[in-house]
């Protein structure tokens, strides 16, 4: 467990300086005493590839899009700016762009099952010609959405007076098809007449169109349904731009974005007899560069890397990443807390970040003997596992994310806290932030020492005690297991984090 920590402690002190996180923005902030509607709770967050757009999904099946505002004036020059070696004194700012209802509650009559509308995952697709496109999924159905600017037009100068047309509307409707057919029937001779008149029939004119304003329109282009018997936990786009995968508890399916009526099952871990079931799939993601590689995690704490080139059915993995448990440390909770809730590839594709109940682990895909680093997220909860089991919190699925440069990782915790760790060699960066307008408040309260070793047990214990004390004096929501920060995302190019505290979206930068 302490491998990563020990390494970090031994390694020469250096590496990048810890980041100073500052509050940037909040959307949907809760006012004091406001009751949270369950449907408003955010259940998915995702930046697009460029980081110019951010999407959130909620339990009410809605998808909300935000767009970056601070770069719009000089989008074309951004790359040049980045190349220049002076610090840019601005941070990503976003504004609300649009929202749409992605999923509705449904009922599966065959299985007598209610299908929630809650958005489980959102993934952006390659955008083209000004249209944004993304995939969103609930437990069963994946949808492909296209969001595009539509001009709201006023049409005038019609040939037929609209009031007159309104008057005999049904007759117009029916007469069009029949009379135009008649026209077609003797089209041969009439067309001769037309060409005699130079300029055609002058009394006919095309409608005049004036653009009033542009409006954003979301259209559902494709629905990929009926391919999952169990709940979908992840979707992931392939780098080839034409396929994606969807994973449920027991199977992973491969789809072509253009084809919604067929998918290929590439992984199936369902045992012949369901009583033999010991392990389920918890998360799956494509490699960011190699279109043939994907990784999936399991409830037993292992990550499997698959090479789709080897075989059409990928039930045998090409690499297995799991940590040997320390002998004698087994307890009733060992298996439960080992379950991986989320995995993410680093942008370079070399590393995989995984989150289990108590830790974040960073793996090198070329090293399957163990993680290269382990970060304790809230080790102080270890003595409380029994309580956490009682109130089901132990099954909470925390997501994790990596910075675009791969130097830092982040994940959420309880009491609306989230933690950022430096993962470059020698880095001891370990920051605790609260999803709040004053993110460093916690830091002060618990008097955390910036120099302490990451995984040093003593440091953790102190942190834990400090928090325990604060439970008495602070707002009374410390260790509040109901305020958990499950979803967060790191901006792909900048040090900026978006995280969801129940119904509010907080953004931080450094």
């Amino acid at each position: 467990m302490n491998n990563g920590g020990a390494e970090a402690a031994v390694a020469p002190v250096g590496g990048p300086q810890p980041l100073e996180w500052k509050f940037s923005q909040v959307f949907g902030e809760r006012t004091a005493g406001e009751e949270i509607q369950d449907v408003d709770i955010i259940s998915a967050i995702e930046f697009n590839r460029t980081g110019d757009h951010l999407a959130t999904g909620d339990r009410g099946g809605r998808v909300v899009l935000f767009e970056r505002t601070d770069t719009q004036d000089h989008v074309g020059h951004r790359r040049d700016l980045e190349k220049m070696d002076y610090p840019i004194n601005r941070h990503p700012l976003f504004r609300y762009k649009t929202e749409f209802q992605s999923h509705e509650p449904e009922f599966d009559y065959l299985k007598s099952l209610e299908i929630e509308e809650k958005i489980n995952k959102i993934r952006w697709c390659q955008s083209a010609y000004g249209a944004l496109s993304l995939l969103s999924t609930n437990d069963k159905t994946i949808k492909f959405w296209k969001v595009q600017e539509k001009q709201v037009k006023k049409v005038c100068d019609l040939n037929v007076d609209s009031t007159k047309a309104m008057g005999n509307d049904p007759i117009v409707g029916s007469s069009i098809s029949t009379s135009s057919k008649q026209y077609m029937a003797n089209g041969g001779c009439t067309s001769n007449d037309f060409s005699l008149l130079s300029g055609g029939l002058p009394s006919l004119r095309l409608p005049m169109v004036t653009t009033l304003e542009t409006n954003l329109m979301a259209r559902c282009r494709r629905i990929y349904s009926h391919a999952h018997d169990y709940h979908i936990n992840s979707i992931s786009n392939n780098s080839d731009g034409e396929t994606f995968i969807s994973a449920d508890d027991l199977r992973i399916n491969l789809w072509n974005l253009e084809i919604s009526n067929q998918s290929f099952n590439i992984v199936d871990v369902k045992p012949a007899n369901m009583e033999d079931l010991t392990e389920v799939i918890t998360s799956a993601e494509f490699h960011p560069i190699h279109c043939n590689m994907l990784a999936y995690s399991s409830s037993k704490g292992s990550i499997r890397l698959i090479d789709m080139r080897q075989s059409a059915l990928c039930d045998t993995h090409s690499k297995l990443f799991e940590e040997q448990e320390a002998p004698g440390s087994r307890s009733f909770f060992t298996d439960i807390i080992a379950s991986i809730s989320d995995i993410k590839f680093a942008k370079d594709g070399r590393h995989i970040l995984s989150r289990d109940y108590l830790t974040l682990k960073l793996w090198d895909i070329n090293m399957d003997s163990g993680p290269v680093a382990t970060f304790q997220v809230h080790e102080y909860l270890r003595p409380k596992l029994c309580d956490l089991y009682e109130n089901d919190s132990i099954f909470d699925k925390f997501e994790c994310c990596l910075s675009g440069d791969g130097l830092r990782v982040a994940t959420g915790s309880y009491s609306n806290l989230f933690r950022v760790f430096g993962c470059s060699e020698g880095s001891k960066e370990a920051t605790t932030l609260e999803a709040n307008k004053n993110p460093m408040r916690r830091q002060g309260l618990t008097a955390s020492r910036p120099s302490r070793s990451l995984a040093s047990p003593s440091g953790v214990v102190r942190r834990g005690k400090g928090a325990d004390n604060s439970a008495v004096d602070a707002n009374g929501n410390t260790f509040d297991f109901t305020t958990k920060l499950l979803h967060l995302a790191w901006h792909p190019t900048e040090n900026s984090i978006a995280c969801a505290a129940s119904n509010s979206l907080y953004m931080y930068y450094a």
Partner: protein
Amino acid sequence: MAMINEPLYPIAVLIDELKNEDIQLRLNSIRKLSTIARALGEERTRKELIPFLSENNDDDDEVLLAMAEELGVFIPYVGGVEHANVLLPPLETLCIVEETCVRDKAVESLCRIGAQMREQDLVEFFIPLLKRLAAGEWFTARVSSCGLFHIAYPSAPEALKTELRTLYSQLCQDDMPMVRRSAATNLGKFAATVEAPHLKVDIMSMFDDLTHDDQDSVRLLAVEGCAALGKLLEPQDCIAHILPVIVNFSQDKSWRVRYMVANQLYELCEAVGPEPTRSDLVPAYVRLLRDNEAEVRIAAAGKVTKFCRILNSELAIQNILPCVKELSTDSSQHVRSALASVIMGMAPILGKDATIEQLLPIFLSLLKDEFPDVRLNIISKLDQVNQVIGIDLLSQSLLPAIVELAEDRHWRVRLAIIEYIPLLASQLGVGFFDDKLGALCMQWLKDKVYSIRDAAANNVKRLAEEFGPDWAMQHIVPQVLDMINNPHYLYRMTILHAVSLLAPVMGKDITCSKLLPVVINASKDRVPNIKFNVAKVLQSLIPIVDQSVVEKTIRPCLVELSEDPDVDVRYFATQALQSSDQQMMMSN
């Protein structure tokens, strides 16, 4: 505003509806774009309608798709080929939109227009358009551009040609895999227009880039390019440049690439010619037949016969046959099934002796396969092997296979074998059929599943056609008619159905003497469903039998049924009576 006179009204409405809020009406108008254009005249179509359409590019994809298609055939309406260039701008925008099918259609239309355009117009309008797309900011534009080079290239002056080749080579190395895939797909078409010296240098280096692409989704499209390029190159160049690529691809890490090779191998062999096929591609093919991945073996197994046809029988026996033997016991049922569907075709290639010696054991083992599809595939191609070695050698094993399939617990399997019974009957002959299969055919009439009973009734008719009425009178009709006394009304209904099918084949004498009495008898059935089916059958018998029989037997029976207490029976009886009335009027 409302001064449109009567005959123009429909067109006026059509024009207005180009901007209607209802997408169906907009689609309808776009589909009639040629009508609108004719009404406006050529000049106003050029100056007003086309620019109007160009601005319409944010419409729904369905409308854009229809527009892309219509514009492809619009040259006559804008004033002929000399004005064709006005159609390019709207199609150019459609080439960039997000939706793939719209772009594909726009490219198709552009190619159609470009193929008709005058050379100087191509240089002045089409090539600049192509260059804009190829350098487009959105990847969609670059994807579309790949499909236009083969139209533009032949008309381009020398300097431009060089530029176009450079552009295409850039597209082959684009950042976006989608663009590279499009470049790979269209390389063959473009190469066909490029002059031989450039083909060997420029095109081959592009091809080389694509075959080494990191993304297997690109590499597997390059496989198709192999065949197309191979046909363009001189034989010796083809052997020098294409053959090693094919051999490499056949050992690619990615099963999808190997699958493509297996699927395309026949075309690839044609491209490289017979000699290299024997020396290099036979080993490659053998590797594919023994591939680790079942999908690859399925593709390879399905090409066994086609591949052997381009080899001589000696090579086939020596190299391919051992693999075929292995495949016949493959662990994947789908591989065996693919093999079974083509293996019978090998008999004529190998000749009688080799077939008996080598293939027959394979046939027999496949006929005993545990997977019904495999057995069915063998049986369905029985005629091919019959021509070479005769059926006798097989018949001993055939019968158990057929019986087992006939009693399979999956009704779809039973259905499939019923479909083949007439084929089997014609191959096996009357004698064999009488002994073994007759009973089966009767058994199917009493199947639990309706589709089987229905197919069985049809089968009885087809057998009667195959062997003639006399044989049917002896071997089918009595057995079928016996079953009319079955206690279950659904089975009685099947018999009625069989009777209605048999009657036209058997002719009026047998119908009157044997079939009709049974039907008349059934009109006394206690189940109304039988009775109204009797009415339907009687209606179908009216045209077959003599008028006197209709008057004497059929009509009285129908009249009686038309007074039945059951409403459905009355309905169908009345229907039948009416049709018999009509029949009489016609004949009078």
